[in-house]
């Protein structure tokens, strides 16, 4: 019975957390905690893989917990197995990384108990099969991750981030609660089996969809519900940031898929797809634009999470649109693209966050403007980070490109859709997707170039040294996976096809393994194909060929000398290009529109000794127009009501008196 084993392993994680409470003080216990978590995650990962590849039948289990008359339902099917794989892969690698990184933790007592609990919460969400258990695990996940965000609570910024995070999480849960209320109906049939069979009117289903978008979107970071994400993810310790950004957002995506594709099920109104598609496109572009404006490495990565969530939701929106028109073959392609990107993003985002963790541990700096030249002291970290950066920038032959290529192919099928809105929307979203991909490349040239290349901008960066071997192992595990998923996409596509067919009325992509050279052939009759393996081979061959020839027949002498730089090399590292200056052209092009970015140069007159100043003022439109008014309103109302605390007894009496008279009048007039 694999399911019971999965559950007991998740429980074991909780126990580890409890044990860590007592153990946190003592040294070496962090190693223990992370070690056990690593082992458990690996086992869970293996079991999930087995279930997914063996295409086993769904297993269910009911425990006498949760809602008394309902019990806690658990279920393991292809979809949850796929996401279990994603979650536990991330968990395992993060734990491995933490074996080394955890020793730099200043407050282990605030991390160790909650880390395994967080993992357990995510696993339970994926296994839950009734509304109560689902929300229970969901909220538990939020709570434990909140505790991890608050680990370094002495910086007021972190406290604020944690607060915003918890409130947004509560908002999301309430939205989901309402959605489940709709799905369950007045009789309160909260278990998913009942919900699947229940009939819903289109209006209610649409309402449920919107609520689910709000609920899961607020956790996944859909614009405009993303505001908490770039604050909260960086605030946590880096391996937790990797989990939150790389994995927890995927759990949110799972929630969306589970409820919308599985529970709501057919029939799907066509405009659902349009809605999700549009949100995804906006999220993708805004996310990467925000990221370009950041100097804080972790916050930059967090904003890229927003972007990639947008890409995933583009795929999901396309799938909904196709399903709404009974085009299941195309829907299969879109779904595959989305799920594939889920996996890819979890890989390279964890990789990047862990790499940032290594940098943080080595230099104590997150601000790119104070880093630089790290490729010299920590070449291996640099290499891993470079692979991650190339992958997230969708460069062939790495995995990011494979999934985005599939998404493009799905968009190219949209002209078959009958609805005009979708016809216009799809190419526009395609343009947005292309734009976000290109901007992402720019952003990671900045991230990698400013952080690792050039010359160190601060003594901390100059004295950095290579990170420990646990961390390096974790980094290169992920880097290898990125490369493999990139050159063998066919295998991955076949691997997640059971999940796709589960959600897609049995329709799935053609089997890829039979193709020559493991080429990716999304739709049989359309002749668009891509083969990462061959591309890699060609590049390797030609590159090596060139190298060999040149070194064999031409010179291979090398002479070191100061930089040329057109004759006047600047001795001061501060004269290098900074993150801000690198982003300036793009800020001028896009930022002036989106963020109302204003540049202000104050140049002292000649002879004046004072330094010239250059300031950039930017506004966050989402916050300024979405959230600030709400908070202001709440504060205003509170201030207004606050007087009621200070009335005289007479006034309070007259309140009661008024209530009484009012009700009596009501009585008198009622008849």
């Amino acid at each position, binding site marked *: 019975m694999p399911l019971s084993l999965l559950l007991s392993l998740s429980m074991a994680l909780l126990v580890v957390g409890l044990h860590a409470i007592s153990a946190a003080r003592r040294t070496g216990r962090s190693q223990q905690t992370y070690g056990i978590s690593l082992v458990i995650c690996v086992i869970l990962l293996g079991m999930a893989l087995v279930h997914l590849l063996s295409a086993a039948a769904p297993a269910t289990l009911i425990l006498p917990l949760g809602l008394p008359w309902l019990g806690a339902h658990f279920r393991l099917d292809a979809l949850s197995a796929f996401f279990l794989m994603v979650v536990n892969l991330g968990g395992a690698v993060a734990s491995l990384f933490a074996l080394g990184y955890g020793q730099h933790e200043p407050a282990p007592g605030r991390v160790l108990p909650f880390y395994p609990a967080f993992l357990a919460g995510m696993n339970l969400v994926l296994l839950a099969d009734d509304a109560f258990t689902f929300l229970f695990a969901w909220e538990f996940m939020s709570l434990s991750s909140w505790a991890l965000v608050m680990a370094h609570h002495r910086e007021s910024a972190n406290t604020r981030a944690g607060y915003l995070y918890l409130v947004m999480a509560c908002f999301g849960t309430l939205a989901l609660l309402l959605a489940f209320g709709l799905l369950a109906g007045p009789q309160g049939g909260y278990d998913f089996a009942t919900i699947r069979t229940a009939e819903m009117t289109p209006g209610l289903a649409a309402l449920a969809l919107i609520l689910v978008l709000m609920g899961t979107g607020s956790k996944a970071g859909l614009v405009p519900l993303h505001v908490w994400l770039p604050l909260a993810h960086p605030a946590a310790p880096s391996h937790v940031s990797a989990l939150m950004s790389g994995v927890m957002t995927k759990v949110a995506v799972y929630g969306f898929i589970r409820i919308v594709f599985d529970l709501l099920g057919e029939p799907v109104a066509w405009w659902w797809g349009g809605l999700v598609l549009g949100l995804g496109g906006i999220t993708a572009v805004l996310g990467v634009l925000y990221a370009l404006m950041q100097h804080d490495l972790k916050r930059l990565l967090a904003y890229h999470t927003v972007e990639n969530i947008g890409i995933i939701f583009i795929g999901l929106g396309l799938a909904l649109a196709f399903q709404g028109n009974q085009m299941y073959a195309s829907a299969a392609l879109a779904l595959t693209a989305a799920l594939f990107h889920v996996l890819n993003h979890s890989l390279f985002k964890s990789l990047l966050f862990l790499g940032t963790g290594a940098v943080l541990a080595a230099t104590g700096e997150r601000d790119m403007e104070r880093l630089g030249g790290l490729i010299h002291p920590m070449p291996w970290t640099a290499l891993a980070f470079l692979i991650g950066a190339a992958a997230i920038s969708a460069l062939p032959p790495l995995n990011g490109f494979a999934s985005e290529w599939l998404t493009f192919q799905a968009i190219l099928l949209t002209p078959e859709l009958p609805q005009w809105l979708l016809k216009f929307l799809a190419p526009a979203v395609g343009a947005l997707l292309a734009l976000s991909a290109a901007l992402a490349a720019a952003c990671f040239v900045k991230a990698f170039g400013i952080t690792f290349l050039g010359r160190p901008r601060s003594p901390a960066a100059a004295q950095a040294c290579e990170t420990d071997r646990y961390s390096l192992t974790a980094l290169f595990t992920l880097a290898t996976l990125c490369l493999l998923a990139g050159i063998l996409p066919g295998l991955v596509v076949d691997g997640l096809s059971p999940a796709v067919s589960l959600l897609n009325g049995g329709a799935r992509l053609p089997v890829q393994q039979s193709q020559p050279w493991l080429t990716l052939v999304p739709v049989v009759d359309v002749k668009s194909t891509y083969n990462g393996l061959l591309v890699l081979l060609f590049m390797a061959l030609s590159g090596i060929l060139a190298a060999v020839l040149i070194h064999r027949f031409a010179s291979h002498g090398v002479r070191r000398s100061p930089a040329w730089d057109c004759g006047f090399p600047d001795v001061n590292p501060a004269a290098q290009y900074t993150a801000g200056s690198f982003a300036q052209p793009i800020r001028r092009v896009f930022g002036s529109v989106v963020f109302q970015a204003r540049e202000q140069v104050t140049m002292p007159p000649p002879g004046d000794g004072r330094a010239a100043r250059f300031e950039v003022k930017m506004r966050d439109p989402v916050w300024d127009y979405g959230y600030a008014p709400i908070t202001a309103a709440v504060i205003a109302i509170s201030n207004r009501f606050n007087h009621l605390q200070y009335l005289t007894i007479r006034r309070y009496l007259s309140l009661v008196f008024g209530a009484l008279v009012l009700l*009596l009048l009501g*009585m008198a007039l009622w008849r």
Partner: protein
Amino acid sequence: MHGLEFDIAHLLAGGMVVISLLLLYQDRLYALLKVFALHSLTLALAVGWQAHIQEAHHLYVTAGIALVFKAIVIPIALYRIVRQLGIHRTLEVVGGVGRDMLAGAALVALAILVMLPVTAGTDAVAREDLAFALAVVLLGLLLMVNRHNAVSLVIGFMSLENGLVLAAAGARGMPLAVEISVAFSVLIALIVIGIFLFRIRERFDSVDMQAMDAFRGGRRR
């Protein structure tokens, strides 16, 4: 004969309403106390009459309680308190007596409007008594709301209790539990209030509630 019974009950109950209005009218503490004594006296008579026409003898006890405690003991006690506290004689009425009288009249109307249709089931005496009792209760509340002074607040509360007793007496065959509880509560109330007034005496220079409102909870924080 029934007519007479009814008229007398009506007269007494109505008298209580009028006296409640008089209470509203007072703006001097001693006068207020005297009128309140009158109020309680009328109550005693009304309850006694009810006992007579209902042949419910336990009601005589209630009447006695009302007479002894509310008409005699309490006013005297309060008189003492007022004198030994030496609190200033006049009590400012919040926004004019005239407005109070208007509000009072409106309340009486409301009480009758609410009560008469409701109690169609029970007999006429109970209906009258209940309507007037409700009026007395509301007027007592108005008195509490419209006075700054602690003592008059207490008196307002008492007249409200009087209204309750009237209602209880009006309800045929209401078990003794109620009267006991009423008397008992009034007793406790008196004691507590007494304690309070003295405590307040320890802390404050006057029983004027405005003095206490100065320290309303939370303001200092």
